[in-house]
C-alpha cells in the first residue's frame, strides 16, 4: 500500500522545524508504524538524506520509549496501542498521515520526533517510591494485600511513562502520570507510611516543571496506551489535600529542572 507521511523535521532545539512530505510506496498492512518509518528511512539513506530520528526500543508496547502524534492524536487512532504496535491495517491505501513530536513546554525537542522527557523521571525521583533500602524487607507474606487492592494498584502501575497523556492534554499537564504513581503506591499497605509526603513532594516537583494544570478534560486517559483511568487524578488530589492539611510546615526538597545532557542528573 501507498502512504503519504508529513513528518516534522527539526535538526535541534534551536533550529527551525518544518513538515516534509514523503511518499512510502511499499508499505504493508502487517507492518507497524515504526516499521513503516524504517522503510522510509532506508529510502532516505539511499538518497543520501538524513533519516528521520524517532525514539523506539522494545517495539512491543511496554518500554514507553516510542510515541508521536499521528494526525493530532498521540500514538494514532487505535485505542490502547503505542505506535510500535499500531499496524498499517488500520489505514487505507493512499492515506495521508501527519507525524509530529509530543508538543509540551516541559518536553523540549531534541531532534525530529524525539523530545526530552526527563521531567517525568524527576517527578519519580522526588518521591515516587517506598523508601525501603535493600535488606530492610520483612517476609513477603507477612503483609497481606487484598486482591482487589493489589489489582487496582496493578492497574495504576501499568503506566509506561511514554508522555502521551501530557501530549494529549490541552494544558500539557502531567496529572495522569503523577496520579498513576501516587495511586499505585497509595493502594498498597506498604505505601501508607509515606502517602502524605509522597503526594506533597511529587506534586511540588510536578508544579516546578513546565507542565500545565489539570482541568479534568480527560484527553489524557483517552490517549493513554495503557488505559490508566481518570480516577487516579482524583486520588492524587485527595492525597494532596489531606497532606497539605497535615504537613503545613514541611520543607519539600525539589530538583531544579535541567536541560543539559552532559552533566547527568547533577545539574
Amino acid at each position: 500500500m501507498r502512504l503519504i507521511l508529513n513528518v516534522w523535521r527539526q535538526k535541534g532545539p534551536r533550529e527551525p522545524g518544518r513538515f516534509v512530505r514523503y511518499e512510502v510506496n511499499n508499505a504493508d498492512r502487517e507492518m507497524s508504524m515504526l516499521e513503516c518509518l524504517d522503510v522510509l528511512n532506508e529510502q532516505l539513506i539511499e538518497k543520501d538524506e538524513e533519516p528521520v530520528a524517532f525514539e523506539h526500543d522494545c517495539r512491543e508496547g511496554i518500554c514507553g520509549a516510542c510515541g508521536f502524534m499521528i494526525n493530532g492524536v498521540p500514538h494514532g487512532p487505535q485505542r490502547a496501542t503505542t505506535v510500535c504496535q499500531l499496524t498499517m491495517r488500520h489505514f487505507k491505501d493512499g492515506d495521508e498521515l501527519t507525524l509530529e513530536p509530543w508538543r509540551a513546554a516541559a518536553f523540549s525537542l531534541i531532534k525530529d520526533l524525539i523530545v526530552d522527557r526527563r521531567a517525568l523521571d524527576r517527578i519519580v525521583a522526588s518521591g515516587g517510591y517506598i523508601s525501603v533500602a535493600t535488606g530492610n524487607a520483612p517476609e513477603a507474606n507477612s503483609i497481606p494485600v487484598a486482591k482487589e487492592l493489589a489489582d487496582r494498584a496493578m492497574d495504576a502501575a501499568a503506566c509506561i511513562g511514554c508522555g502521551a497523556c501530557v501530549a494529549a492534554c490541552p494544558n500539557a499537564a502531567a496529572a495522569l502520570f503523577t496520579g498513576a504513581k501516587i495511586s499505585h503506591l497509595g493502594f498498597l499497605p506498604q505505601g501508607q507510611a509515606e502517602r502524605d509526603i509522597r503526594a506533597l513532594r511529587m506534586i511540588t516537583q510536578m508544579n516546578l516543571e513546565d507542565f500545565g494544570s489539570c482541568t479534568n478534560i480527560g484527553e489524557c486517559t483517552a490517549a493513554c496506551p495503557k488505559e490508566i483511568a481518570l480516577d487516579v487524578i482524583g486520588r492524587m488530589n485527595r492525597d494532596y489535600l489531606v497532606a497539605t492539611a497535615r504537613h503545613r510546615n514541611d520543607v519539600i526538597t525539589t530538583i531544579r529542572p535541567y536541560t543539559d545532557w552532559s552533566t547527568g542528573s547533577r545539574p
Partner: protein
Amino acid sequence: MELNAHIPSGPIEHAWEKARFEMKLVNPANKRRHAIIVVGSGLAGASAAASLGELGYHVACFCFQDSPRRAHSIAAQGGINAAKNYQNDGDSVYRLFYDTVKGGDFRAREGNVFRLAQISLEIIDQCVAQGVPFAREYGGALTNRSFGGAQVSRTFYARGQTGQQLLLGAYQALERQVLAGQVDMYPRTEMLDLIVIDGKARGIVARNLVTGEVNCHLADAVVLATGGYGNVYYLSTNAKGSNATAIWRAHKRGALFANPCFTQIHPTCIPVSGDYQSKLTLMSESLRNDGRIWVPLRKGDKRPPDQIPEIERDYYLERRYPSFGNLVPRDVASRNAKQVCDEGRGVGETGLGVYLDFADAIQRLSEHVIAERYSNLFEMYERITGENPYRTPMRIYPAIHYTMGGLWVDYRLMSNVPGLFVLGEANFSDHGANRLGASALMQGLSDGYFIIPYTIGNYIASNKLDGIPDSHPEVRGVEASVAQYVEKLLSIRGKRSVDSFHRQLGKLVWDYCGMSRTASGLERAIGEIRELREEYWRDVKVLGSAADLNQSLEKACRVADFFELAELMCIDALHRNESCGGHFREEYQTEDGEALRDDKHFSYVAAWGFNGAGNAPELVKEPLEFHYVHPSQRSYK
C-alpha cells in the same frame, strides 16, 4: 592463563554465608570516598546502582535510553522464580538449585546456582516491600504459577508485566538515590570503551548520544550490567537498542568471553510476517500452562485450524514427553517446533509456525478465567496479528530471546580484569547451556541487590586504588581512539545502510548458529561473516555527523561489534563437539533426536581471550565439578 572462580570450599549450603564473612568491609565513613560506575539500568544495573548508593558509595549510572526505566528487563512478561514453597507442593532451595543445574544441561557452576536459589527468597521480600503489585489470592497472600521446565509452582508474577513491575521497583529505588545525591544518572550516554590502568578497570569512555561528546568517566570499580547479545541475530525478542558493545569492548581490553554459543531460542513468539520485520514479539511462556501445542498430522494440510478434526492433529509435545507435556524446557520445545516445521507440517502463510490452542482450557476453566490469566497477552497478539486467540489458536514460532553466554566472572561476579564486575545477562554465570523460564529476573536482581554490594566492597577494601587524573595518558589515549573510531565509521560513506548489513549478518548467524548447528555450516559461516565484516568497513553508509544525535551512527558502532562477536559465537559452537541445552550440534544427538552431551570432554566453561579481530582467539577452560547434582541425560519424558 589459570582461572580461579573463587568458589568457597565446604558444604554448598553455607558457602555464601562463609564467603560473605570472609569478605573485607569498607568503613561506612570511607564509602563516600569511593566512586563506582554502573553501566546499564535494567534489573541488574538499577538494583546495583540503588543498593550501592544506599550503602554510601558514590555511583554514576549510565544508560543509552532516555530514561533508566526503559531498559529491556521491562519487557519480561511471565514472572520470577523463588523457592518460597508457598504452594506447599514440594519446592525448596535445593529443588530450585537442582532444577536450574539440570535445566542448564550441566554446564553451570553449582556454587553460583545454589546461591541464586538461596537469594531468590530475599528478592521476593524486597520487591513486595517496594510495592511491586504481585498477583494475590483473595486472602491477601501471594499467588504462584508453574512455568516451563518446573513441576512446582514457584513463579511470582504481576499479570503479564512482571519485568516491568520489578524494573519500576528498582528504577524507583534508583531515583530515590538520585534525589539523595548518591547516584548521578547519565541517560542517553553509551559506553564505547573500558579504561584499564595498571591492570585494573578504572573507568569508561562514553559517547553522549545527544551532543556527540566523547568523555571519560573514572572510578574505583566498573560494573557492567548491559544485558545480552541476542541482537546479533537482527531478528530477536530483544529491544532494538540492546547491544553487546560494552561487554565486547571490555572483552577487547582483556575480559574473557565465556560460552558465547549458548544462546536461547524461545519457543513461543509471534511468527515473522515479512521482510520489513524489525523484531520478534514474545508471547509469554506461561501460555504453555493452559495452551496445547499442535500441528496437523498430515504434511501440507492447509485447512484452517477449526476444520482439522481432533484425530488429524498431532499434539507432538504431549505425545513425545508425556510427563512434562507442553511444559518441557525452552530448548526442547523450540527444537521440536523446528522439527515439525522442517517436516512440512508447519502452519500459517510461511509454514514456519505451530498452533498454541486454548480451546480446551476455555472449555475447562471458562473464558473469564483464561482472560484473567492472559488477557493482556491475548490483546497483544490480536493487536499484532489481527486474530482473536479466544476463537482461533495462536500461531507461534521460536525466536532468539536470551543469551546464556557472556563475560566470564568468578563467584564474586568479577571478570578476570580486576575491578571489572559483570552482572545479569551480560555475564555467563548461572544458567549453563539453557535458562529456565522466570530465572532471568531472579538472576538480575540477585546479582544487583544481594551479591555486588558485598563483593565490590571486598574488592575496594582489599586494593589500594590511587586517584587517576583525567589527564592520565591512558585515559587520553582511550578517549582519542574512541573519537577516531567514530569518525572512521562516518568517513566510509559507502553504499549500504547499517540495517542492510545487520539483516544479512543476522540471517547468517540464524541459519548456521541458530537452533541447530553443524561443523560444516559453522565453518562456512565464519568465512562469510569475515567477508561481510570486511565489506562493512569498506561500504557502510552512515550519514550525518558525530556532533549531534545520530541514530545511524549509534547502530553502526553496535553492528561493528556484532560482527566480531558473531564470529566468536561460531568459533565456540564449532569447538564444542557435543550438544547441550540451547547448543544443538546435529552430529551429536541421541537416537530419538535429543541433545547428546559429552561430559568427558566438554564439562567446562569455554572462556575466550581476544587476540585481534580476525585472529584465532585464545581458549581458557574452567573445568566444572558436580558434587551435588550428578550429570545425567536430561529426560522430560
